[in-house]
């Protein structure tokens, strides 16, 4: 029985002029109403969670159903034949990996270095505010604009042509704001006490950064990198303009290449082969599943030493 002190909201709404004391009957009906309301609310929430998870399972399932018939281990080893209507996607897999590697090898150090410099070596001021704000706005810019920026700068004026290098540099510019902002948040989350503790043990500023702050912020930074990797692998418009669409196996970073998402896009949109499009999409989702769960494991193990 709820004592009269805790007046459930429902009773207040029923009669705004009611006196403070409620009769026992009134209180118990409110209790039943609350309990039912509570069960209703919680079950709606649980239902929605299952619904959202079901959406995911059905997407992956749909891709699997449509993609599995043509899916064989060979798919990852052979090269595409006849515009990708048959054969495998080995060169495309390699190109995607190279593209991700080049873009992250450039964007990760730059992003973390900027985050470290702006949090540790400068005082909070107008400059840091402007930079942070600029990065946030850039993170919202659609990738096609980066695509054309990359095309004009790297492909044309720097003469790199359609190549993994141009694509990698463009994708690096695109994910740099994301990595910078997530790293900065992670570094800021490190309590100041740990910094002072480091200094009190005779560590220099760079030692405090490399031995205390970065290890402590590692999980946050890793999350930023995974987000960036997801975006790089999923990118199409920007990659078509900078890396090109050649299905040949790239022999150097300056050869043009086709990433898996672009391959899926061209197969699906040009209607070259819908089945192969689904197979590629299914392989892509598997790849991302691997990367994500690998990273989660890394974070879990790093979390509890």
């Amino acid at each position: 029985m709820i004592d009269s002190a805790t007046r459930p909201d429902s009773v207040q709404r029923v009669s705004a002029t009611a006196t403070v004391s409620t009769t026992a009957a009134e209180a118990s009906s409110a209790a039943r109403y609350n309990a039912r309301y509570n069960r209703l609310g919680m079950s709606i929430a649980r239902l929605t969670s299952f619904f959202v998870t079901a959406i995911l399972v059905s997407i992956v399932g749909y891709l699997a159903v449509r993609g599995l018939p043509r899916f064989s281990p060979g798919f990852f080893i052979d090269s595409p034949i006849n515009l990708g209507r048959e054969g495998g996607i080995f060169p495309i897999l390699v190109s995607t990996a190279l593209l991700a590697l080049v873009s992250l090898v450039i964007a990760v150090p730059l992003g973390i270095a900027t985050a470290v410099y702006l949090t540790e070596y400068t005082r909070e001021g107008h400059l840091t505010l402007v930079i942070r704000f600029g990065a946030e706005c850039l993170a919202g810019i659609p990738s096609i604009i980066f695509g054309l920026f990359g095309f004009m700068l790297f492909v044309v004026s720097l003469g790199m042509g359609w190549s993994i290098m141009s694509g990698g540099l463009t994708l690096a510019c695109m994910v740099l704001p994301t990595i910078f902002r997530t790293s900065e948040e992670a570094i800021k989350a490190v309590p100041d006490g740990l910094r002072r503790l480091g200094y009190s043990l005779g560590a220099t500023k760079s030692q405090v950064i490399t031995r205390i702050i970065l290890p402590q912020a590692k999980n946050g930074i890793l999350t930023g990198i995974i987000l960036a990797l997801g975006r790089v692998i999923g990118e199409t418009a920007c990659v078509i303009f900078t890396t090109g669409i050649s299905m040949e196996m790239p022999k150097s970073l300056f050869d043009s290449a086709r990433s898996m998402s672009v391959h899926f896009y061209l197969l699906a949109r040009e209607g070259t082969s819908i089945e192969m499009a689904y197979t590629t999409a299914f392989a892509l989702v598997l790849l991302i599943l691997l990367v994500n769960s690998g990273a989660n494991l890394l974070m879990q193990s790093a979390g509890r030493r």
Partner: protein
Amino acid sequence: MKYSGLINRCVRLRILIFAGLALAAASLPGCGKNSKGLTVAGSTSVQPVMELIADSFRKHRPDQIIDVEGGGSSAGIMAALTGTAQLGMSSRRLKEDEPNEKTLTAITIAFDAIAVIVHPDNPVVKLDLEQLRGLFSGQYRSWKDVGGSDRPVHLIVREEGSGTRSAFEEMVMKPSGDGGREEAVDAYALVQDSTGGVREVLRGDPDAIGFISLGAVTAQVKMLVIDGVKADFETVRNKKYRLTRPFLLVSKGEPTGIAREFVDYILGSDGAKIMHDEGLVSAGR
């Protein structure tokens, strides 16, 4: 100290990358792509057939690297202008406002028919130009107006600037003869950015009508007879089917060396055969 070693290496790594980045940016303006092999870039309508021709050309000249890129006609033309690609592919005539189009030489390599397609269940079989213009300008709202069933008309067009669309607008939306003003395509027309996109929409919507390259027509869609002429290899070659547009290769000055050889190969019998299989009429002999 395992983790601090990792982080220290990270500092050295950064120096390495930064040097690499600077080196890459500095050393590259010169060499670019053309020093090794041939790059052909441009229109996404021309790219598929160019890819097939390049495949067979690679068997013919294995020592040469042929790189076929997409990106659209404008990107192709710009690539040809800046030398990023020796040959630019375009599915439309060079526009007047294109910069110094005087320095670009255009070589017509094939004629591509634009097929008007509908859903297989659509009873309509043929249309004349005037009806086609009426449909696409939004004048006729229902299939009943052109002899079909009383169903709303769903128009599918390509995006502004695409070779296929500008050719269609020139030949259909401009009333022939009295040189009247070109009618605008109905604003409610759905826009898809690729041949596959148009076909994909048509496959699923019985009330839709669109236009794509003849080569891209498949069993899932029905091609209409326009002005009494059915589009096929013959009617395109003898110009009886009037909805055609040229596929062009553009290059800065006359193509030379491997580029010249590739163009000759395209216009030659091998190229013509591949183009024929893809529903194109070669502009060669």
